[in-house]
Structures are given as structure tokens and as C-alpha cells.
């Protein structure tokens, strides 16, 4: 089930909230788990078994690690079991097809015939919930978190439907307290409603409207300079509004249920460097990779050469986490290389700080170049777009694309671009005002109501609106 659908908005959510608020508090976490299974099972019931396996296994591993530690042991065997099981599930369901295709390509190069096997269906959300359950076992092993007090709390944590299939990746200790005592107030519910509506509008009005521009260019045979850059800019905004819209909706739904999830985005396109970009984009993933991969690999504590290797390793694996395709590996390598380069330039004092009007567009362009491989179906498709961006197919606009570009697409593209830069300025401006003034400005947020209604009508008119990050 997706948030931007009639079945979620008008059947699942009202029925779920109705029953949730009628139930006494002690049954609510169990009901969240139950509702989350319905939410996930709406896509496929059979893959619910994977969530259940992950839940039971990590609950047991967490408890056994603590038991072993109370006896003076480390509990490493239980941690290894958790890692092997979670990574094994991820490896099979996410990377089996990719591994086989890559092996067959290699065999074909050496004149051998391909190996034929079954195709594995990728269960939605597997990358997210396996990372969550792994972090639970690791945190207990490191004595940074207490194990779940009961199985219901843990079921609720793993299955929590607002963030089950596309994040933010929440760690157990972040919501441990709220799992057994959280407040439900009208103010919190209204704050959550606001976040949910903002996210919905971002997704349906902005991301979905600019999506055809990106699809046209990435599907074109010979995009030219203008349409290639226009299409890549459209994808840059589509991905941001789609994914940050989803995160807003997740955070909003969490607030309605009394949870406060961590923020996942902080205006990434105003970053002045790629290093800063990764502190603002998909924050829950980048902190996960930092805490569970970069730092254990040695981080920056083992000399500069090792730091660069660690950065590259983390970004390559981060790329691969997004999808089983060489395009994601290249995207990870691009970002890993840029992070290492920025670190080198800073350490050697080879780079004087430049003004924001240069560094902000520079970072945006570097991110856009990366998004081409991220979006393309394969490396040759990415190269077609790069050719267009370099002007190798001409500097004009391809006629086969031009006639399909509508005023509405361009208006939403411009509006999206304006919002990317005005929203952080607005937030800063508001936070510096005296509190009474802030409150009077908050009323302007009521404008979200008519825009939300328009977005619901748009969703109904276009029927289906999948999220880009579901594929990861």
C-alpha cells in the first residue's frame, strides 16, 4: 500500500486511526504491528513472512546477546547470526538476479553459455527493515541500547507502517521510550497532519508533475544539450520532492501516533559541498552507514590513505544498497570520489573557501551529474544523457521532446526550484522572529488545506502514484 493512494487515505488510515484511538494504551503497540502487517500485506501477503523472520530472529538475538554479556561473554555468536541472517536475506532477495546476470555476462565474454535460474522478486522495504533490525542487534552488542522489554514492542518497532518501506531508518533506542509511554495530544496530531499534508503535496503536485520531463529525456535516443539538462534538473527535483515528501508523510503519521521520528532531509540542495550534501540528504541512511560501516572500518583514525579507502568503500556499498545495478555502483563511486577529493583539498589547503553563490550551484551540478547514473536503467542509457549534457548531440532542444513539454511541467519545475531555495530561508527568517510574530505567521500554513484538496483531486485524476524509493 502506498500513502498516495485512495485505499490508504480513505480506507486504511481512517479505520486504523479510529480503532487505534478507541483502544486502551496497552493494546496500541500490538495494534500498530497488526495494522502494519495489513499495510505491508496489501502488496503481497507471502512476503510478510520475511518481516516476521527478521523480527523473531533479531528479538531472540538481542536477548541472547544480553544473556551472554551478563555471564561475562560478548555474545558475538548471536550478533554474527543476526548479521548473517539479515544480510543473507538481503543478498538473496536483492542481489541474486544481479549477481547471476553479472556472472553470465562474464561467462559469455569467455565464450561459455549462461546459467539459467529462477528470477527473484524484490520485496519492498527489505533494505530498510533489515538495516533497522541489524542496528538493533549491533547496538545491544555494543551496549548502546537496552533490548526490547517485550516482543510486542519489538514487533511494533520493526513493522511500524509509517516508516516500514521507505524510511527514515529509525534505531530502536530512538523510539524505545515512546513504545511503552507516548503522549497523544491534539497539538501533536495537528503537527503530524501538517507534515503529512505537506509531504503529500510535495509528492503529488511537484514530484509527479515534473516526472514526465525526466521520463522523456531518460527515454530519448539522442537528447540534446537543453533537453538533457532540463530532464536531469526535473529528475533532481522529482527525486527530492518524492523522497522527502515520503519522509514528511512518515514523520507526520508518526506524530499522529505519538512517535517523533528523526528528520531525514535538511534542504540538501543548498549544500555548499558534497560533504555537506551527505549531512543533509537521506540523513538516516548516511548516519547508519557512518556508525555501522565507516567508523568500524577505522573512519579517519588510521591515516589519510585509509580514510579515502573507507570513504570510497562506504559510498560504493551505499550505492549498492540503493539497487542491484552497476549504475548504482558508479553513482556510489562518483560520490565516494568527490568526498575523498574534498577531504584531500581541505587537508592540503589547496582550496580557498569560495562564496556561496559559486559553491551552491557547483554542488547542485555535481549532484545532478550523479543522479544521471542513479536514474538510468543501465550504463549505456546514462551515457546517452551525458552525451546530451555535453552537447555532443547538438546544443538546441530535440524536436521529438520539445512538443511534449507543457507549461504546467515548466511551472512546477520553476516552483520546485524556488521552494528548494526559499523554504530554508523562510525557516531561518521565522526562527529569528519573536515568538508572538512566529505564531501569527504560522497561520499562513493553513493555505496547505486548499492545496491538499487539489492534490487529492489530482491523485484521483491520475490514479496511481508510486514512490521512487520503493524500488530500493
Amino acid at each position, binding site marked *: 500500500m502506498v500513502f498516495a493512494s*485512495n485505499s490508504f487515505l480513505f480506507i486504511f488510515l481512517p479505520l486504523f486511526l479510529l480503532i487505534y484511538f478507541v483502544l486502551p494504551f496497552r493494546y496500541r503497540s500490538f495494534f500498530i504491528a497488526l495494522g502494519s502487517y495489513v499495510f505491508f500485506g496489501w502488496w*503481497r501477503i507471502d512476503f510478510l513472512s520475511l518481516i516476521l523472520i527478521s523480527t523473531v530472529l533479531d528479538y531472540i538475538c538481542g536477548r541472547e546477546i544480553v544473556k551472554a554479556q551478563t555471564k561475562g561473554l560478548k555474545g558475538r555468536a548471536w550478533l554474527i547470526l543476526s548479521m548473517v541472517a539479515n544480510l543473507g536475506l538481503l543478498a538473496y532477495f536483492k542481489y541474486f538476479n544481479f549477481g547471476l546476470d553479472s556472472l553470465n555476462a562474464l561467462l559469455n565474454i569467455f565464450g561459455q553459455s549462461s546459467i539459467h535460474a529462477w528470477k527473484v522478486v524484490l520485496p519492498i522495504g527489505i533494505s530498510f527493515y533489515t538495516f533497522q533490525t541489524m542496528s538493533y542487534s549491533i547496538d545491544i552488542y555494543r551496549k548502546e541500547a537496552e533490548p526490547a522489554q517485550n516482543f510486542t514492542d519489538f514487533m511494533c518497532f520493526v513493522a511500524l507502517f509509517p516508516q516500514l518501506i521507505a524510511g527514515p531508518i529509525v534505531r530502536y533506542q530512538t523510539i524505545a521510550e515512546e513504545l511503552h509511554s507516548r503522549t497523544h495530544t491534539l497539538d501533536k496530531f495537528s503537527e503530524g497532519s501538517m507534515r503529512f499534508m505537506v509531504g503529500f503535496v510535495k509528492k503529488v503536485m511537484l514530484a509527479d508533475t515534473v516526472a514526465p520531463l525526466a521520463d522523456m529525456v531518460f527515454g530519448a535516443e539522442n537528447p540534446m544539450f537543453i533537453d538533457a539538462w532540463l530532464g536531469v534538473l526535473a529528475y533532481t527535483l522529482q527525486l527530492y520532492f518524492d523522497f522527502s515528501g515520503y519522509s514528511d508523510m512518515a514523520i507526520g503519521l508518526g506524530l499522529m501516533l505519538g512517535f517523533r521520528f528523526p528528520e531525514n532531509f535538511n534542504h540538501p540542495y543548498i549544500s555548499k559541498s558534497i560533504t555537506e550534501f551527505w549531512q543533509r540528504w537521506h540523513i538516516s541512511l548516511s548516519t547508519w552507514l557512518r556508525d555501522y560501516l565507516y567508523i568500524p572500518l577505522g573512519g579517519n583514525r588510521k591515516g589519510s590513505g585509509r580514510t579515502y579507502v573507507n570513504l570510497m568503500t562506504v559510498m560504493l556499498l551505499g550505492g549498492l544498497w540503493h539497487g542491484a545495478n552497476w549504475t548504482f555502483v558508479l553513482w556510489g563511486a562518483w560520490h565516494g570520489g568527490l568526498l575523498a577529493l574534498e577531504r584531500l583539498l581541505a587537508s592540503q589547503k589547496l582550496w580557498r573557501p569560495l562564496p556561496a553563490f559559486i559553491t551552491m550551484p557547483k554542488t547542485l551540478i555535481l549532484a545532478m551529474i550523479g543522479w544521471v547514473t542513479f536514474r538510468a536503467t543501465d550504463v549505456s542509457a546514462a551515457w546517452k544523457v551525458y552525451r546530451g549534457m555535453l552537447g555532443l548531440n547538438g546544443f538546441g532542444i530535440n524536436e521529438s521532446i520539445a512538443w511534449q513539454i507543457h507549461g504546467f511541467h515548466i511551472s512546477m519545475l520553476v516552483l520546485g526550484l524556488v521552494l528548494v531555495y526559499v523554504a530554508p530561508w523562510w525557516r531561518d527568517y521565522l526562527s529569528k522572529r519573536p515568538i508572538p510574530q512566529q505564531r501569527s505567521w504560522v497561520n499562513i500554513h493553513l493555505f*496547505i488545506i486548499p492545496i491538499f484538496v487539489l492534490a487529492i483531486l489530482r491523485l484521483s485524476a491520475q490514479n496511481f502514484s508510486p514512490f521512487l524509493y520503493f524500488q530500493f
Partner: protein
Amino acid sequence: MKRTPEYSNKLLDSLLGWFLVLMLIIGLGLALWAVKDYKPNQQDLWQKVLRGGWTSDFDKELNDKIAFRQLAIDSWGALEYGLFGTGRKGVLVGQDGWLFSDEEFQYYPDEALELANKVGYIQEVKDTLAEVGARLVVLVLPAKIQALS
């Protein structure tokens, strides 16, 4: 009275929450009304329930029959046409209010392959109809733009 945190309007502050609750209640009523006659197709029902086919049928029924769907299509169509002079997906607005199907202008990198695919599809439809004793009559019409130019 000047509004301060102490004297803020509680109703205004919680308006978004109340609004969403109202929307969800109205939406639930409309959604249940839309699917009141829905009966799942019994063929391979167990497989469909297990693998999600049943829910996608249900979603389709809900999307098609929800009361404000036509209003949504009409209002967004009117808005886009009024503001930007563009039609719905698949429609191209020409000069003097002439409307065209955008497939007439579609460019395919490999025209021969596209033609082969379409002929293959027609053949598939013809075979399917033949299985139930119906004959497909193919009528080739010129594109509207060709007829008008």
C-alpha cells in the same frame, strides 16, 4: 487582543488536525460507498490474495468508482487547459482548439520495431478473439494530422 503563546487561538492551532479528521471521515464514507458492490473474481483467488492481485483489483474498483473521480478529472482538465492550454495525458491541443491524439506525434527511435510490436499486438488480440469465435476486423485509418494537412 495581540496573540501570544498564552493567548493563542487553540481552535486555529488545531485546525489542521480537525480538517484531516474530517477529510478522512468523509473519504471513508465515499470509499465504502464506491466498493459496496465489489466482489472479488473467484478465479485463482487464493493465489491472488497471497500475491497481491486481489488488492490491486480492489484498488482499481475503488479508484474508478470513488464519487469525486469525475470531478477530479474535469477540474484538473479545466485547470490545466485554462492556465496552460494543455490537455490531459494523451491529448495534444492544436491551433484554434483542435485536439489531437499525441500518439500521432510520437517519435520512436526504431520505427520498424515499433511497427512490428504493434502488428504483433493486433495479432494477439485477433487470436484471443478467435478463441471465443469472434472475428477481428482491422480498419486502417489515416492519422488526423495527415487528414487535415
